[in-house]
């Protein structure tokens, strides 16, 4: 056909606009082009393995109305942007925006059928909402804590020293004074929770055993900015993120490793939105250790005889890479699985919803702090799914996932133990 081709007039149909910043125009584009296909509510149908575990969106599954879904949020954004609705028209807007774990399940499914970024849209909506109506009372303590202590747990900075001291006793470098190739970025939650502290020690021991040249920042470590990023406090995110990048660049490290999926996704992906650019590689500890496993550097001593299942944290998995339309939604999926399989006596059984189509633990997006009932409901759904695999233990590597899954498990008839990947690893070493 010699005739001239009739192509869309709007260039955004020819190529999705990816360049930062994510603004109102981009938000409208995503919202406007929602086709109400409901793909954001269900696991990609090719991967649905049963009727029971076919849902992807905790919010929609829990609250049922379509307003509480990716599609509904597109409709809301469009109404707001086009001036048909205002943020204060309806108190329920708050729930639509914030009773959502920002898990990106919808976003991943949507990316299977169109070029779009729902999580960026939600983040934009949350920030606009906060600009108009102020932060949520449910998040007040978290925000205060950030402002006051640069962490989300209302803990004085010096509190970080408790584990830092333990690490120092192990002979771990303090990068505030020394140099190393690798920074172990611990994150607020591993750093400040008594319950989770052993994980950090275990990681440090494993790294040490393998002669990795690494160090920590101790009480000088500040929040990565993930919580304010997810709850729409973008200024606060920018403040923390910029400070962090600058600091890390100054350290001259080659690699930043973190065991926290939230920190990982934020530093690896979200920091790309900030004006200062990273000069180091970002890896999850699982990725780093997987390299050691591959090089057969890890010498296990014990056999564990456990059947386990792996829960993919959202920010380590589908949200762990920048979006490139048409490219795989890569993430840290295989590395933890390879590590698990490397541990003697471990049998890995999979849940139905895994990898980029995993069901969220429920703890993200400010839900853990702000909307506990919803967060724990979501966790129970995940624990039930884990139970159905026949596994003895659910393994993951994200402090939010661990804490929220444990909290959700309280009172459940059938218990499911939740453990950290590196603790398990240590047990076999």
């Amino acid at each position: 056909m010699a005739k001239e081709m009739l192509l869309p007039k709007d260039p955004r149909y020819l190529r999705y606009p990816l360049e930062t910043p994510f603004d109102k125009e981009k938000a409208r584009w995503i919202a406007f082009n929602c086709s109400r296909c409901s793909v954001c509510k269900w696991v990609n149908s090719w991967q649905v393995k049963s009727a029971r575990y076919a849902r992807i969106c905790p919010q929609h599954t829990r609250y049922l109305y379509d307003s509480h879904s990716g599609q509904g949020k597109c409709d809301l954004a469009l109404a707001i942007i086009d001036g048909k609705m205002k943020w204060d028209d309806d108190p329920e807007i708050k729930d639509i925006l914030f009773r959502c774990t920002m898990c990106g399940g919808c976003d991943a499914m949507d990316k299977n059928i169109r070029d779009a970024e729902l999580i960026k849209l939600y983040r934009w909506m949350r920030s606009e909402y906060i600009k108009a109506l102020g932060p949520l009372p449910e998040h007040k303590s978290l925000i205060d804590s950030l402002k006051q202590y640069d962490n989300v747990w209302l803990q004085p900075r010096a509190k970080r020293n408790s584990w830092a001291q333990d690490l120092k006793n192990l002979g771990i470098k303090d990068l505030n004074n020394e140099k190393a190739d690798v920074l172990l970025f611990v994150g607020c939650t591993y750093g400040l929770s008594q319950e989770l502290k052993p994980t950090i020690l275990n990681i440090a021991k494993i790294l040490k055993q393998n002669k990795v040249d690494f160090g920590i920042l101790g009480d000088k470590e500040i929040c990565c900015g993930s919580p304010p990023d997810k709850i729409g406090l973008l200024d606060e995110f920018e403040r923390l993120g910029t400070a962090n990048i600058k600091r890390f660049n100054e350290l001259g490290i080659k690699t930043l490793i973190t065991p926290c999926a939230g920190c990982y996704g934020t530093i690896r992906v979200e920091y790309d939105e900030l004006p200062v650019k990273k000069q180091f590689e970002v890896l999850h500890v699982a990725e780093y250790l997987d390299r050691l496993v591959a090089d057969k550097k890890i010498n296990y001593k014990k056999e564990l005889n456990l059947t386990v299942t792996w829960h993919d944290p959202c920010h380590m998995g589908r949200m762990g890479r920048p979006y490139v339309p048409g490219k795989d939604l890569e993430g840290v999926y295989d590395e933890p699985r390879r590590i698990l399989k490397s541990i003697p006596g471990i049998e890995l059984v999979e849940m139905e919803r895994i990898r980029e189509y995993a069901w969220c633990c429920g703890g993200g997006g400010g839900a853990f702090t702000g909307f506990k009932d919803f967060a724990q409901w979501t966790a129970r759904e995940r624990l039930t799914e884990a139970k159905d695999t026949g596994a003895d233990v659910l393994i993951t590597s994200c402090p939010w996932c661990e804490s929220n899954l444990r909290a959700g498990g309280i009172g459940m008839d059938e218990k499911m133990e939740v453990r950290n990947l590196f603790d398990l690893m240590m047990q076999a070493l």
Partner: protein
Amino acid sequence: MAKKDIRNNDRHQQILQAFQAAVGPENVKDNPATVNAYYGDWLPPKLLGMSVPPEFVVLPNGTLETQAVIKICNRYKVPFIPVGSNQWSLTGSPNRQGTVIIDCKRMGKIHEIDEKNMYAVIEPLVTLAQLQAEAYKRGLYIGSPEASATASAIAGHCFQGMWGVGYRLGVAYRNILGIEWVLPNGEILRTGSFSLDAQNGFWGEGPGPDLRGMLRGYAGAMGGFGMVTKMAVKLHPYPGPKTWPVRGTIPNQISELPEDRFKWYIIKYDSLEGAINFMYEIGKAEIAGVVQKWPTVYYIWWWANSNEQYWTEWQKRTFQDNVKNAVGVCLWGFTSPKQLEYEKRVLEDIIKETGGKPIKQEVFDLWVPRTANNWIRDTHGSRMMRPSGTFLALRLQTDTLKYAVDHVRQGYEWVEKFSPPILDCDGPDWIGGYDFGHFGFGETDFPVEKRAEDIGDLMNKLLAMTKEDVQNGLENGIGPFLGGPYHQMAAPVFNYEHLLKGIKKAIDPNFVSNPPHNIDPNA
């Protein structure tokens, strides 16, 4: 805000309280943020300001609560729309103020899967993907329309129900067994074997004249005849694996079914007639599980994983130059691998006799693993909206394959006439064989840019075309998918006005079930 005013009025409050009493306070909502999510999709109504948000969204659980809701609608004479996944705003979005959306979100149970007798009893939220997954586990399967397997299986069965595997299974109207159904007047109708035993939906017909007829039609009753709350649907013997084979990561997934039971061919002809002749011969030979002549855009709609890839590849003409007048055939070895071998030999004979040629191997390899099995599991139909925000269709026909060809031919002419705003599509003809080739289905599909000006203009042109078709005594085009307004126009011409209006009046005396669908008895 105007909406707030409505909520304050007494009548609204009375209706709200009645709904609350019927379904529980948390299962009815009238606030702007909720109703805002229920009046638009990829189709023109919202874009063109033809649809409005509902006044209430109600979530009944089960038949009795649905009945209570519908009775309240009758009491207050307020219109309601039953919805599934609500992808079809032409008939699933409120076209008038004061509408109640009956959303099926609390009706997601699979009541029963009778593996031996090959049927499932489902509620309206159950998606085709869920049902398929459960079926595969039991060595059974069910089709899925192009719309995508996220659609409600019941809505799909009520609506059009043309699926890739329909070549073997027939169109969904034959797939419906017992139905439990709340009529517009609030009565509970049970059809087929449900009529005598509410626990047993294994059989669809009767007793006596078959009232399933009310539910369906070329494009179904469009919510104009009440809400189905439970349906028994057929499942079919399946020679594939217990879970759907898929590898890779979104959006680059590959699906390959076992080679000893399934085999795809894409065979090209010099003309559409050649392609159709091939399809006839396959049907006559009683082989194959899927037989489809796809439009060129279909190849790329489901294959491209980004807009950029779509338009780059389109401009390279990768598909246009290779798959025009090509027929996709998937052979299935139901009985054994030997059946597949047999069918291969037969198909190869037919290809030779009819002068067909396989498409270029590299195009085949590019397309088939990523895309072909869409026709068995799920097309990911919403990819159709990717390249330009929306697509539209004209000239949907089902009769014989021969008839389908004549119609898509005329469809081309219309497409030419309406381009732009119709975008480049180069051979927009979709022809599917059904019931082993007893029927042929034809449709002309094309991308359109989602811009109010363009779509508005095109809609008017399409409506004028439909009107012209009807005046020429041509039925069954895109019209039935518009529901009421079409039937209003077509019913006198095709002689069903009295009957359809009579039925509508009889079972929907207050004209509350999704007016003006499927016809306005008083117009």
